[in-house]
């Protein structure tokens, strides 16, 4: 079988997917998950052209606060400057290229390069060059501030950068995904969410795109996470049996294409939510406060919207590498390739800015029942992805991954189908195979 010349392939003849709508089959070329050439093209066509998540404004409380991190492989300084503006700088000295700031986080008015002592303000300008009398008049410090990504913008405190000066604006890029971010932010009476202290940073020895798939793939829940389902049952959380034999999930959920490569699952809650669906794991003491949290939501948002916030779960993917899970707790998870068969994952917990000590503790405890490198589910996801990567060593002799699940379904796509995975792969394939493809195609 060859990908060449298939329907819905790329204009230049190279396609990584065989997307046969008539037959209802979708195959993925496994070269996409193992090839160095593909990774190099991804850096150019995807990571240098899409809006990439940098950080949350709540991580920068006071002027001068900063975090250093790698975003799309680029070392950056994510900072609140002296005037209180949120900024993003490339963490590279304009002089000879050294990493400027080596601290993980802190509060600084100025960033000093250790190599020759060039000093930058937290607004980015080059403030001091030791021995500047040795330069001619052509030496213009005003043009030697720290470089910034071409674009840097926020939606509701979620800050993104884009290395492409021609990229469409962030709001249009996020498109329908904004509504799903709103659903999370609506948890907070003040509309302010807070990234909670403590970062989970772990590597997975698998191609980064496998994490995209895994983050929204509800088909794998019963098989990969049976020990988590047992834990829930042992803890008195009633997981309803499937009402429909065709469903692999206890409740019917949906998968929704949000355009621009973004997508989400949208499920009826069956696992408890810190805001605000009580399960026995939270303890009897939690009941009154959780009822009050729900009541506040009903008062502020109306009963229907409150129900949406309290009683539905989502795993949202912002193309290409941001996942926001709003389930057992809210997690922001981003990941970046470090080679074709390795990714670096960073995950944070997100809470409301004003929640009580008890509510915060409950949220974090709920997080750890499922998510993270010590959670009751994530380590098995990591194992599954690493098993895929190991199995892919046979890719040349077993070339195609089967991703047709749910294609015959006429109307809505279920969370346990592979529709949303296909959404990702179609968009990725387009960006990878078009010479000048647009990062923000119309849906």
């Amino acid at each position, binding site marked *: 079988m060859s990908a060449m010349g298939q329907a819905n392939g790329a204009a230049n003849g190279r396609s990584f997917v065989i997307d046969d709508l008539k037959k209802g089959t979708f195959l993925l070329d496994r070269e996409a998950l193992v090839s160095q050439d593909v990774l190099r093209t991804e850096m150019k066509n995807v990571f240098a052209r899409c809006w990439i998540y940098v950080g949350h404004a709540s991580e920068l409380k006071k002027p001068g606060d900063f975090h250093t991190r790698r975003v799309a492989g680029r070392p950056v300084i994510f900072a609140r400057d002296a005037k209180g503006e949120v900024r993003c700088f490339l963490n590279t000295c304009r002089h000879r290229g050294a990493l400027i700031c080596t601290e*993980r986080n802190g509060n600084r008015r100025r960033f000093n390069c250790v190599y020759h002592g060039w000093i930058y303000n937290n607004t980015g300008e080059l403030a001091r060059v030791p021995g500047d009398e040795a330069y001619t008049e052509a030496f213009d410090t005003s043009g030697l501030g720290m470089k910034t990504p071409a674009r840097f913008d926020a939606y509701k405190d979620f800050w993104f950068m884009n290395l492409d000066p021609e990229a469409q604006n962030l709001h249009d890029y996020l498109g329908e995904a904004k509504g799903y971010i709103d659903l999370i932010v609506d948890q907070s009476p003040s509309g302010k969410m807070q990234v*909670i*202290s*403590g*970062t*989970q*940073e*772990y*590597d*997975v*020895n698998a191609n980064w795109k496998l994490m995209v798939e895994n983050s929204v793939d509800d088909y794998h829940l019963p098989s*990969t996470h*049976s*020990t*988590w389902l*047992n*834990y829930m049952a*042992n*803890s008195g959380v009633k997981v309803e049996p499937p009402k429909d034999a065709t469903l692999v999930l206890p409740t019917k959920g949906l998968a929704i294409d949000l355009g621009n490569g973004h997508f989400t699952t949208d499920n009826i809650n069956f696992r408890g939510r810190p805001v605000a669906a009580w399960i026995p794991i939270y303890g009897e003491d939690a009941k009154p406060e959780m009822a009050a949290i729900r009541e506040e939501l009903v008062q502020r948002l109306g009963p229907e919207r409150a129900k949406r916030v309290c009683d539905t779960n989502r795993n949202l993917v912002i193309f290409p590498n941001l996942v926001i899970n709003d389930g057992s707790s809210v997690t922001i998870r981003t990941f970046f390739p470090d080679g074709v068969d390795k990714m*670096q994952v960073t995950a*944070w*917990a997100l809470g409301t800015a004003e929640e009580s*000590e008890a509510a*915060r*503790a409950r949220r*974090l*405890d709920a*997080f*750890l029942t499922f998510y*993270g*490198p*010590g959670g*009751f589910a*994530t*380590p*098995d996801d*990591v*194992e*599954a992805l690493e*098993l895929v990567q*190991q199995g892919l060593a046979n890719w040349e002799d077993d070339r195609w991954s089967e991703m047709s699940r749910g294609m015959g379904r006429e109307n809505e796509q279920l969370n346990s189908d592979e529709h949303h995975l296909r959404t990702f792969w179609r968009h990725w394939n387009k960006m990878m195979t078009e010479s000048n493809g647009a990062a923000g195609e119309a849906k």
Partner: protein
Amino acid sequence: MNAHANVTVTRAEVEDFFYLEAALLDEWKLAEWEKLLADDATYFVPPNDVLEGDFRDTLYIISDDRERIRQRVIRINDPNCHAEYPKSRTCRLITNVRITGVEGDIVRASANFVCYRYRRYQREFSFVGTYQYKLRKTADSFLIRERRVLLHAHELGKLGSVSFIL
């Protein structure tokens, strides 16, 4: 035991206890290991970047009360705990054992460790850290009241998951 009088304890007693626990964990004798735990035992692995954070307002890697530890052991023993099936082989080296305080029948003790974890195909993970314990002195040994594992790496990074009892 009189709560007002501090128990007397030697480093050798604490070392023997640590070595026993390490052997049970390395041999995957988790039922026997659970017998070393007090009824109010806790098990913490704080995040690498905020080792001093409080689990109530800091996202930990592991923050278990006694019931959660019981559930963790059930999970790890299940062949469907894919991250630990087949089981990792682990080997703990424990050193720098110190008694850091005694308060009534509670003995605070710490130790440095290297825990090597091996998966198939030469995948090797070296967890380097410090154990911090609160031990409750019993007639002939100790019960673990709190077991806190500080990891020295700046990030979990290539260590991946903490899918076993570290």
